[in-house]
């Protein structure tokens, strides 16, 4: 169980005195307590933590500083999803988060930033938050904090983002061209464009493949794709589809990244996105 104390606006050393009193009067000795503080107010918190046998973890949380006091001996749960690929990591993290009470955290170690992006997308979509993220040597990690999902009703006045899902690949030149020609049009209209290459579409993202697609009326496909990426479109290749075809992250076209199923589902379910399928 995690108790959250909002102490923003209270300066040092008053914040430490408040923390001392809160811990003295806590209901449960094993309770974890999180203080939300104004920046700089964390001074003296380490002494309070030592006094009561707690471990202190200070992390920035938006415009605030978060001081998390955990009883000594308790450690944050860690999940290592290196060696696993989409959709495995997202499912593993989702299942663990579902069992945690609100406020609990879990550290996820992944093989790549792309996998973490996908996990972060799924965590946020489930209503939880990303409390931290970073790199430790060759390890990429994020800290997910369980929060209850808030139901919200959002009115979308205009769809200013376009998601183009391409599943035909270089086996259908017309659809491959349409993906990037539509992207150019959407970009020229000031829309944010995300292209998701999945199934056969994943083949377009491999270096050299698009260079083999040329119609007399249009620019060569790889040059067209390069123009679209440089103009600001985000291009993802489905990790699962890439794996299916033996395409690794090292063989992708520059500017193209791997993404998992969570990213795709989030793009589809976001009401601000207009979705086009090719």
């Amino acid at each position, binding site marked *: 169980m995690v108790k959250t104390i909002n102490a923003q606006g209270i300066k040092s050393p008053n914040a430490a005195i408040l923390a001392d009193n809160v811990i003295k009067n806590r209901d449960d000795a094993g309770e974890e307590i999180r203080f939300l503080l104004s920046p700089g107010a964390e001074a003296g918190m380490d002494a309070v933590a030592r006094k009561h046998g707690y471990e202190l973890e200070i992390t920035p949380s938006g415009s605030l500083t978060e001081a998390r006091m955990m009883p000594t001996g308790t450690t944050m749960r860690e999940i290592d999803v290196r060696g696993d690929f989409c959709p495995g990591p997202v499912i593993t993290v989702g299942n663990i988060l579902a069992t945690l009470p609100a406020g609990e955290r879990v550290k996820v170690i992944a093989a790549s930033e792309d996998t973490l992006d996908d996990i972060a997308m799924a965590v946020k979509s489930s209503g939880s938050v990303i409390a931290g993220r970073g790199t430790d040597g060759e390890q990429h990690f994020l800290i997910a904090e369980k929060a209850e999902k808030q139901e919200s009703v959002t009115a979308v006045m205009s769809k200013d983002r376009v998601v183009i899902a391409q599943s035909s690949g270089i*086996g259908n030149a017309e659809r491959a061209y349409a993906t990037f020609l539509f992207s150019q049009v959407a970009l020229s209209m000031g829309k944010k464009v995300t292209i998701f290459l999945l199934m056969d579409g994943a083949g377009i993202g491999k270096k050299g493949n698009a260079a083999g697609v040329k119609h007399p009326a249009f620019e060569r496909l790889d040059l067209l794709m390069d123009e679209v990426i440089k103009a600001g479109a985000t291009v993802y290749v489905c990790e699962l589809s890439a794996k299916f075809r033996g395409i690794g992250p090292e063989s992708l076209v520059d500017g193209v990244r791997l993404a998992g199923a969570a990213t795709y589902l989030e793009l589809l379910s976001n009401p601000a996105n207009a979705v086009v399928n090719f």
Partner: protein
Amino acid sequence: MEITYQVIALAVMFSGIVSGFITFRMLGMKLAPHFGALILALLATIAAILTGNIAVAYGAALLQVAAALTAYTQMWTTLKYSFQTSPGYAPHLALVTMLPVLALAGILL
């Protein structure tokens, strides 16, 4: 040299026109070398059947092999990464694969 196989090859090439048209439309200009080889093979095969000339028939057989080879070299990348769209061009590949077999049969049998 057995000219009967050239007749069968001609039938295969004619029957490949529709699937070839669709494949060409799907894959675009990368199939231009295959299209060129196929047209030449078709003309040489007709000439071999009409004249009965062995030298022309050998030339036709070579062009038939070239037509099959160019189909595979030009379509290999597509075959490697595109599974969902493969039914669109698989019939044409199946037909052109018969050509080198018939060409060899015509020469060896």
